[in-house]
């Protein structure tokens, strides 16, 4: 990543109009993170819109981490793990494969479109698949537009009790 890439990385200070999708990607250590590394080693290009969080196993990705990513302002979330049968911990990704369809349904009920949440298996050898996936997800999240969850909730008055003096006056 060049200095320019780092400076132009999307963040909250980005000017309106210059919106860039911000995608959080949870990758398992043994396959998918190595796959992403593989993409880098092979000098494959993919957009700088993803922030990768490495976890030891996709089974460790508590669904609340996905909700929290959206609640804190992510426009999209990716979850990648080893293919079924390849799990370093034998059956960690079996939990993932049961949870993710439920996560997608719950997100749908909260009004978060399916394009914003992607769950895919990426092996350590699939650098090209990873790069392709990031390009595709970035594009579909760009089409979906900004999600802006924190501002939406603030607008509706959620949480302002936290800033109040116990007697009711503003702190």
């Amino acid at each position, binding site marked *: 990543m060049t200095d320019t890439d780092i400076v132009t990385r999307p963040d909250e200070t980005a000017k309106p109009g210059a919106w860039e999708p911000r995608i959080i990607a949870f990758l398992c250590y043994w396959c998918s993170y190595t796959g992403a590394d593989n993409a880098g080693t092979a000098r494959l290009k993919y957009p700088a819109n993803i922030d990768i969080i490495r976890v030891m196993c996709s089974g460790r990705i508590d669904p*609340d981490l996905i909700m929290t990513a959206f609640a804190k302002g992510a426009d999209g979330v990716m979850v990648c793990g080893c293919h079924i049968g390849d799990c370093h911990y034998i059956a960690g990704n079996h939990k993932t494969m049961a949870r993710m369809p439920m996560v997608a349904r719950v997100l749908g009920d909260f*009004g978060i479109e399916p394009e914003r949440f992607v769950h895919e298996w990426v092996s350590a050898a699939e650098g090209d698949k990873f790069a392709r996936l990031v390009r595709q997800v970035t594009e579909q999240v760009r089409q979906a537009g900004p999600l802006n969850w924190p501002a939406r909730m603030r607008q509706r008055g959620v949480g302002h009790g936290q800033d109040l*003096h116990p007697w009711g006056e503003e702190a």
Partner: protein
Amino acid sequence: MTASIPAAERQPGKLRIGMYWASSCGGCDISLLEIAEHLLELIEVADVVLWPCVADFKYRTVADYPDGYIDVCLFNGGVRSSEQEEIARLVRRKSRTLAAYGACAMDGGIPALANLKSTGEIYDAVYHSNPTLYNPGKTEPVERWSTPQGDLTLPRLYPQVLRLADVVHVDYQIPGCPPVGAQVWKVLQAVAAGEVPARADAVRVGCDNRSVCDECHREKRKTRVKEFKRPHLAIPEPNWCLLEQGFVCLGAATRSGCGALCTKAEITCRGCYGASGLAADQGTAMLSALGSVIDATTEDRAREIVDGIADPTGTFYRFSLASSTLKARR
């Protein structure tokens, strides 16, 4: 933060308690009567200075109390309208200690399930499309209506159900739908004995820190779920873990303290005591737990099993949607 601000001086005289209802069903008010004969002991040491459910208290009466006049106010129900927020702020000012009483005040409760619908959809269901309605004029409530005698106003409906803690500082939270009588009595005894600090930061009382499974008598056989069943379509086998039998029981993700009343009665835990000790979000905690008990080795089979859960969001967040990480539909 706010908990470090000292409470007002206690006014002389008997202990003064209040109970207020906002977006709730009235069950919490009734649950206070569940302390049964202890009610007589309670009124020996305490005066009721606010309880609209059982006696006539005008808002003016409460507004005329000095600040901090009510020693402990139990507030049940979430906040869905401008009137409820106004009274929440008023009783906060008039109470030394404010407790969110019951699932609705603490986590939004059943009314917060409406956070999955827009105000427009709710109005449509309530005033237009419900099959039992007769509303040919398509009448809807409005906030302001002018008559020759003057303007009439109604409180504003908020776009979503908020918890009490979303609008004012809350000292204690008492979970349950409704809170169990024995737990309520324990809390009231502690209050009467002066053992409860007036100021705290949303500390949960009247419950334990573990999960309902810890209190449940049912046997775990370490089997996995092949198919989910809906409670009205199958009869559970007694004394065997309901989740292992394929019923979506929220015990694993729910705070203990109720004595596992529902599973004793062959009914799945609905999750009314809110998220258990370490979980921030009850719904995802349950979703996560379910993912670990599915009997599948292929992706298609896993999807087939979990697709058998009708309405996962409404089930996992039945009582805690307003406390969830996402809080409401977009």
